[in-house]
């Protein structure tokens, strides 16, 4: 462990090894139920994550069909650290390409949303169509036969970096990879069934956005939602009001690879029992004065009241009581990520349901009575890893294996993600 220069790595004892030896310096601990802290801090590893995971054969969340309803409507989004323009093309389909001019690489589109007939980079006014093709290069043939592009310059070879797009159940997904399977196959049949429970094709309605920069490695957010052990403990609000507690009917499932997961549960009532007494912070006397905040209405085809899906690597699909949102993860270096929440309802929701969703949104986001806890705790973790990356997490709840469970006190889905991660990253 130590400081990395271009050719050699200085270890903490002052000795150094060259880059070829780096892989061996980064040896995973023997047990599968350990995650070394350097996965959250190592810059070389992070570069490899961007290349193999975010630019690799994985689908990233881009946005929603309803965000770009008309031809020319666009919205800025991202894949990894790349800025992506998602746009409704002339053919009525959603397309996406990188927000990076093919000429000098400027991130030219600055408005988060808008309607365009074309995209122009302000630097030298190179113009692109809604399909990302290069349409115009000012003075391509020079002025008075002087200057200009070489004769063999071919505009068709210099469009914007295109993203392969699939639109599934109202959400839009993108990848740079030709090798990635279809989105449905990428999720796997089991996870796809969970996906369709919320994203059935019923038209969505955007209720609004919240954004936060969380000073922690992006993987910690994925892990947080795969960790079914924490919600009833960290989130006192959940356990106190019976929204999520260890004795409730629940399950954790993964796709075959372990990279995606879902945490399901069925809410109970506010009650003190053996489980609540095990939670030090449980407060039986706590009551809401205005309980409209917890006015739940069941609207799902299955009895579960919570379905938190992690679609590796880019998004959490939240259905927690009547609050539905996508939480997009955009990594920003080893020690931080932007977390973009899009809260939604269905287009045919009645007014009462919209109000219910908006009230329940108080539990989530940067000021969320529940979610603020998560941003804080993973910041605490990251701080420790940065100062002492030689340790490792102990991920042994529920044993050492990766398997679907019908209980909550397990860390199986975190082990599942790292089993997949190690394979992709060659660790």
């Amino acid at each position, binding site marked *: 462990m130590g400081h990395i220069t271009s050719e050699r790595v200085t270890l903490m004892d002052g000795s150094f090894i060259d880059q070829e030896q780096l892989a061996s310096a980064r040896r995973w601990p023997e047990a599968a139920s350990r995650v070394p802290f350097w996965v959250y801090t190592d810059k070389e590893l992070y570069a490899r994550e961007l290349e193999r995971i975010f630019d690799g054969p994985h689908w990233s969340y881009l946005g929603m069909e309803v965000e770009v309803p008309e031809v020319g409507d666009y919205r800025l989004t991202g894949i990894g650290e790349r800025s992506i323009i998602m746009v409704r093309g002339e053919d009525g389909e959603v397309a996406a390409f990188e927000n990076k001019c093919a000429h000098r690489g400027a991130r030219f589109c600055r408005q*988060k*949303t808008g309607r365009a007939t074309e995209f122009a980079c302000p630097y030298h006014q190179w113009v692109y169509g809604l399909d990302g093709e290069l349409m115009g290069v000012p003075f391509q043939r020079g002025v008075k036969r002087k200057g200009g592009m070489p004769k063999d310059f071919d505009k068709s070879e210099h469009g914007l970096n295109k993203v392969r797009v699939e639109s599934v159940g109202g959400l839009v997904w993108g990848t740079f990879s030709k090798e990635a399977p279809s989105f449905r196959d990428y999720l796997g049949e089991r996870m796809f069934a969970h996906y369709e429970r919320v994203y059935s094709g019923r038209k969505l309605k*955007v*209720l*609004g*956005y*919240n*954004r*936060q*920069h*969380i*000073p922690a490695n992006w993987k910690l957010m994925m892990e947080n939602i795969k960790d079914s052990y924490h919600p009833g403990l*960290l*989130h*006192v*609000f959940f356990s*106190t009001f019976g929204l999520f507690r260890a004795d409730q009917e629940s399950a954790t499932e993964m796709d075959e690879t372990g990279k995606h997961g879902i945490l399901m549960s069925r809410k109970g009532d506010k009650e003190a029992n053996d489980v609540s007494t095990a939670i030090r*912070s449980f*407060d039986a006397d*706590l009551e*809401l*004065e*205005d309980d*409209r*905040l917890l006015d739940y209405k069941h609207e799902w085809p299955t009895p579960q009241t919570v379905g938190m899906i992690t679609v590796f690597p880019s998004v959490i699909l939240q259905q927690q009581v009547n609050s539905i949102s996508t939480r997009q993860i955009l990594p920003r270096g080893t020690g931080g990520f*932007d977390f973009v929440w899009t*809260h939604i309802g269905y287009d045919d929701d009645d*007014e009462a349901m*919209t*109000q219910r969703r*908006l*009230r329940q*949104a*108080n539990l989530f*986001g*940067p*000021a969320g*009575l529940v979610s*603020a*806890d998560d*941003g*804080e*705790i993973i*910041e*605490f973790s990251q701080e420790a890893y940065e100062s002492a990356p030689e340790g490792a997490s102990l991920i042994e709840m529920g044993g050492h294996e990766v398997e679907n469970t019908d209980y909550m006190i397990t860390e199986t889905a975190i082990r599942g993600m790292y089993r997949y991660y190690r394979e992709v990253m060659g660790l």
Partner: protein
Amino acid sequence: MSETLQERAEAATHTEAKAAKPKPRPASAEVRAAVRDLYDDYLACMDDGEFAAWPGFFAEDCFYRVTTRENVEGGFPLSLVFAESAAMLRDRVRAIDETMMFGPRSYRRFSSGLRVSEEDGVIGARGNLLVVETLADKPSHIAVCGRFEDTLARRADRGYEIVSRVVVLDTEMMPNSLIYPL
């Protein structure tokens, strides 16, 4: 309340539409002074961390919303914090005290450009808000920057209460969490 929540949110936040209207009439010097006193008390209470007293500044049937320009300009009703009664504000204070987990910090709120208007007995107050956050062992930083648009009413006994408060943040990317009320 017959108005829908969205109508209330829209009425309180459609600043573009408001801007097109003639400027609201400034309130009398007496009202302006009394409202300034109210905000001085409000900020002192909040900066001292006396959050239990915070809901007392509001009418029981109040409307409170913290949101971003992104949502207001896009016409989206989502908020960061949203309450439809002083009881909901009290619930949030209890949740902050008893259920939420966060690193110790203090907020100091800086308000400027207060303008107080009075039209048909409705008192409006607008101003800027800058919140500096200080976490233990870290340098102070700006947590959020924005504006507030409030309506106030005279209390039966004395003084004023906030009937509606909408804080619209320029800051769209929160530096991690927004814990305390604004």
